[in-house]
């Protein structure tokens, strides 16, 4: 594994950043694209149910939940350079767990099931990260991706074989989620609930990535060895972000389970894991909004195209993905977003401090 042991970088590093002062000032002078994009999408998402027909709103709710899931993958791949090919493990595990809570214990309150789902995702991710990342030998990226993929595959197989979990068919007809005495059924209400959760988690992630912790992560992504020389425990940082992403995936999984009303093995397995990789690569890893845009575009396209071109749609998707990877390694977002803004700046104080230093 000598060629992949060290010096592996996610795509963001392959492209050299525009670092010269001239370029930097030119970018700083330009209007920021990212906040405008985020705001525009938020407005579009908020008014969507008012103009869309009901069945499309239901579909849009599902897309929002998948956006949340994509966000969790973007955190680990786009920001920490961990290629998790088993992200659906946390998504599906939380989904199955809340389905069981609801089926066997009659617990359906949103204040119980969402925290439970997140906690399960968090713990599962923490354990897996502890095993895969920590230890005497630093793990290669290939090993971590293989390990996560195996985790998802194993969970899929076990769920398929388990009578308690419903085998091939999964767990059908989960009772609806409740807030107080109100039952959440699919429709605009559920849509706005998911949107609120998505915005909240988006903002929290944004805050996290712009904090000192995010700064260390950015350093990790740019040059892992140098960050290690500075005394950061690189593998611990990775494990923490992995666990956080697991919690987000768990939240998404529990929402998904209640929205669809059933859980089945594909939620756990390789199918869902690769789906989320598609979303994030498509939209652009390394920006939070890229994950959202990617999910919306891929799911939107598949909604319109799969009706008319059901057979060739997966092939088109594969070709599009290949083209994006080959020619736009930073995803579609890089069409409108400059390199400098993508990397971002960290806190208002950083610039002054840097200038003050001799």
């Amino acid at each position: 594994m000598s060629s992949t042991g060290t010096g592996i970088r996610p795509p963001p590093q392959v492209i050299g950043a525009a670092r010269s002062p001239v370029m930097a000032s030119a970018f700083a002078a330009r209007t920021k694209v990212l906040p405008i994009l985020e705001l525009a999408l938020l407005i579009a998402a908020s008014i969507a149910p008012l103009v869309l027909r009901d069945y499309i709103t239901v579909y849009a709710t599902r897309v929002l939940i998948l956006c949340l899931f994509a966000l969790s993958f973007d955190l680990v791949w786009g920001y920490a350079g961990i290629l998790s090919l088993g992200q659906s493990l946390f998504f599906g595990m939380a989904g199955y767990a809340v389905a069981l809570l609801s089926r066997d214990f009659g617990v359906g309150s949103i204040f119980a099931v969402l925290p439970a789902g997140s906690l399960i995702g968090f713990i599962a991710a923490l354990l897996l990260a502890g095993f895969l990342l920590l230890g005497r030998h630093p793990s290669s990226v290939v090993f971590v991706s293989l390990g996560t993929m195996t985790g998802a595959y194993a969970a899929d197989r076990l769920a398929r074989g388990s009578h308690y979990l419903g085998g091939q068919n999964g767990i059908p007809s989960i009772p609806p989620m409740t807030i107080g005495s109100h039952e959440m059924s699919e429709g605009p209400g559920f849509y706005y609930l998911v949107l609120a959760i998505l915005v909240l988690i988006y903002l929290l992630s944004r805050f996290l990535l712009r904090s000192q912790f995010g700064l260390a992560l950015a350093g990790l992504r740019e040059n892992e060895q140098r960050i290690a020389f500075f005394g950061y425990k690189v593998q611990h940082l990775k494990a923490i972000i992995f666990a956080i992403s697991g919690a987000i995936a768990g939240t998404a999984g529990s929402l998904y389970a209640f929205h669809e009303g059933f859980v089945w093995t594909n939620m756990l397995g390789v199918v869902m894991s690769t789906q989320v990789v598609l979303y994030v690569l498509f939209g652009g890893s390394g920006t939070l909004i890229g994950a959202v845009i990617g999910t919306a575009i891929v799911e939107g396209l598949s909604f319109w195209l799969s009706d008319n071109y059901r057979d060739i749609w997966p092939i088109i998707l594969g070709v599009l993905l290949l083209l994006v990877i080959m020619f736009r390694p930073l995803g579609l977002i890089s069409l409108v977003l400059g390199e400098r803004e993508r990397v971002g700046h960290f806190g208002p104080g950083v610039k002054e401090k840097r200038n003050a230093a001799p």
Partner: protein
Amino acid sequence: MDTLLIATFEILSFGAIVVLVVLGLGIIASMMGIFNFAQGEFVLLGAYVTYLVHSVGLPVPLGMLAAPVAVGTLGFVLEKLVVRRFYAAPIVAMLGTYALGLIIREAVRGLTGGLYLSVPEPISGSITIGNLHFATWRGVIVIITLLVMAASHALLAYTSFGLRVRASLENPQLARASGISTGLIYSITFAFGAALAGLAGALIVPVFSLFADLGIRFLIQGFVAVMVGGVGSFAGPVAGASVIGTFSAWLPWLMSPVIADVLVFVLAIIFIKLRPQGLVSGRGVNR
């Protein structure tokens, strides 16, 4: 005693299948440093070519000869067009080849209509020794695997082409300076790995029948085997494949197949964690 012999034969023949599938993957990973996620789909494509030849009424062995040629050619073209761009970034290579695999898999799914299609064994029947019966075709797979393994090893270890491949692996700059066209060598190596996968697909399609997800079944197994064996040598992936193949065939005799399937992978991952360099560490063909 009889069951033991039957079990041994089953384990041997399944181990041979895994070795055959993994060999191409291992050669590409070891010689070029990228993990080819489309390898499972090359296996699928080999199976499909065999089915295609069979369905137009030509004899099955002809399809089995055509499969490695067709898949190898495709591998050559894909390397030139796509894979070539990814050598600098092994992780992007995984994603890119994954996209390739997705395209091939979905294309085959469209072509087969999502059905399970069967191809008859070219040599059917069984060999009877005493009161034991062995499926002849599985025996043939074992023999062909051994031949292919020996031929691949000889090609890489003893021919001047093998020397060039190893030189390009060891030090691409120096190889280029010595007048070796490393680009061409990489193309041929990739095509060779793809052809081996195609051959594997052709040989196993009578056993497993043809369906679109045939490749995925072997992909994870192949990766785990390569990592267990160790990347960088010829013997590594073969050793890893033998171990994984043996366990995959042996454990279901002891416990339920689902648990056995999962257990093999979990044990393998733990092994790789404890010994990242794999069973056979080091580079080169003879080591």
